[in-house]
């Protein structure tokens, strides 16, 4: 199933919201006249929108005014954002934190929207990674054809955050965010390259992304090409032994083009990281493996962006950024101890309103 909305469908959605109390056929006639688009084309697209559950209207002999469904309203809201948001583009370091706050709000809203729609997904972990992924895309614009940089989401369960950022950058259509985990969707539960080329490597099984990052970084050096490889790791994920095999490989091969970012939210599936299997002293662990280590307040996207830009310019060794985050992304309604959390409708609306203001 094609998950992206075409231009006509977008037009219909926004027109429905402006035209109340029309039957479907009256609405279509009016829209066709205004837009010059053939009636049959509009009719077909309206039918698709109805099948997707975005609009509702009556039947022959049982006329009801055409209107947007709840999902339709949300999708339209998302679409409007995209149209209205100025392209963030290259932000200089001097850009105010406020600007990033707005960007982050949009990304978070998208994450909540995805998970609310799907009624599944790792919400807390996605919120905790949102800032980091947003910063990575802001600085490196990775994984698209024209980019020299690569990004691997080794903690694949934060996929909703990756998709939200991708949508923010136009790699995905916002409309697709309504279809996390549904059959045929490019938005698989964990990033899957077979469905979405831009993830460059499928993940989901913890502990494996850093090795792939090492391979890509070595490959770039062999080819003598520039570009950074950024791998986002969960803190619980560091319990996998393969991470440390890869950490050794990175320093043994002097990979000054590899950056590992650790989403240090202090929680893993069944509890606090320090209770399950102590990770501290984490910074000195990485240092002792031959990495440069930088600790950063991962809640502040401007700090992350700044640090990444600095590393891009001055990296000498494989570099680990320990980004201190909160698993609920600072949204108080969401239990940071929960690894899996589906907001209720009331919560969803409340979060949505707060995030988008």
């Amino acid at each position, binding site marked *: 199933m094609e998950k992206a909305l075409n231009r006509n469908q977008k037009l219909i959605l926004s027109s429905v919201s402006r035209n109340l109390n029309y039957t479907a056929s009256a609405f279509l006639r009016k829209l066709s006249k205004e837009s010059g688009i053939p009636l049959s084309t509009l009719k077909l697209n309206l039918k698709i929108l109805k099948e997707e559950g975005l609009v509702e209207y009556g039947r022959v002999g049982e006329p009801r005014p055409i209107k947007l469904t709840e999902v339709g309203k949300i999708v339209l809201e998302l679409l409007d954002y995209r149209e209205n948001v100025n392209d963030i583009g290259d932000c200089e370091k001097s850009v105010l934190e406020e600007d990033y706050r707005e960007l982050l709000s949009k990304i978070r809203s998208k994450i909540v929207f995805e998970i609310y729609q799907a009624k599944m997904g790792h919400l807390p972990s996605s919120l905790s990674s949102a800032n980091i992924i947003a910063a990575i895309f802001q600085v490196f614009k990775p994984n698209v054809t024209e980019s020299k940089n*690569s990004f691997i989401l080794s903690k694949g369960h934060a996929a909703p955050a990756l998709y939200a950022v991708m949508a923010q950058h136009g790699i995905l259509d916002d409309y697709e965010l309504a279809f996390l985990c549904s059959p045929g969707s490019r938005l698989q539960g964990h990033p*899957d*390259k*077979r469905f979405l080329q831009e993830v*460059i*490597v*499928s993940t*989901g*099984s913890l502990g*494996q*992304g*850093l*090795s*792939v*990052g*090492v*391979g*890509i*970084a*070595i*490959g*770039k050096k*062999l*080819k003598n090409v520039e570009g950074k490889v950024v791998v986002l790791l969960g803190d619980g994920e560091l319990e996998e*032994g*393969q991470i440390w*095999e*890869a950490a*050794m*490989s990175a320093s*043994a*091969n002097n990979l000054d083009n590899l950056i590992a970012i650790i989403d240090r939210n202090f929680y893993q599936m069944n509890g606090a990281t320090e209770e399950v299997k102590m990770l501290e002293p984490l910074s000195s662990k990485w240092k002792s493996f031959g990495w440069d280590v930088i600790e950063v307040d991962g809640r502040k996207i401007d700090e992350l962006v700044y640090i990444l830009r600095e590393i891009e310019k001055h990296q000498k060794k494989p570099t680990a950024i320990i980004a201190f985050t909160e698993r609920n992304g600072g949204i108080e309604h969401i239990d940071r101890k929960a690894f899996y959390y589906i907001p209720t409708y009331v919560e969803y609306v409340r979060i949505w309103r707060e995030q988008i203001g």
Partner: protein
Amino acid sequence: MDSVSVSLREAFGEKLVKIGEKNDKVIVLDADVGASTRSSYFRERFPKRFLNVGISEQDMMGIAAGLAIEGFIPVATGFAMFLLRAWEQIRNTISRDNLNVKIVATHAGLSDYADGSSHQCLEDIALMRILPNMNVLVPSDSVSVRSLLEQIIVLKGPCYMRIGRDYSPKVYTAEEDVIFGKPNILEEGDDVTIVACGIMVHFALETRRILLEDNIRAQVVDLHTIKPLNKDLLRYCERTDKVVTFEEHNVLGGMGSAVCELLSEKGFKIKRFGIMDIFGESSRDYIGLLQKFELDENSLAKRVKSFVEGDSIES
């Protein structure tokens, strides 16, 4: 003995260098067993394109995946047994993303006879052939090692090639005779078809010779490519109503099982000979170990004969 050709790993190591001379995209990865697998020849010739990742097979498979993403043709080498500890990495990254990684596993089957059951890999064919996208090859002698290695390098997609350590009686004389994906009929016969892979192809030929003394004419097929499984095999087997399979692998899930899957709808009588769902053990010589597991030509001839004559059921 001039019927014994170059050892399998020697053939692999030498051919790899030749391939490296022609194709600069080939990168060889080793988990610190290069001296044993003979990938060390490649290191000597192309140090910059050789990566010893250390004793860390899981990391090696991830790095191979990354190199494939960057457009290289990584050849990940190691002992068959220990590459299996990276099975999940192979499954979740290389096979799932259909990455162009060539895995060459040496010391497979019982060929690492002295080291014992920790090193004797009898499970890899099963574990590799259930992976979507994966091509699975078991060359039967050094000539087919060279031939198939050359062919899989230019094939797009993940491949698993299984070879033994040294022992390698000659089966082929010309590399052109071994074509990826095409089972080879080595001997004709009407009474029973022996489908074999790896070193067992040699034993199939020897078994045929012994069976001839009892007037049993066996057709011998070398099934060096287990996946994709060529459906022509069905046609070949139809020449005899009885089929046996020889493999240096657990009889569960291996080449014999693959053959059974193909033939199952046609009412063949099939028997699989291999390792009967047990682990290996140490031996001071390879042939002695094969004898112990009744996989030498004399034991096999006896077992096939009783199957063909249909007068006994093996325990």
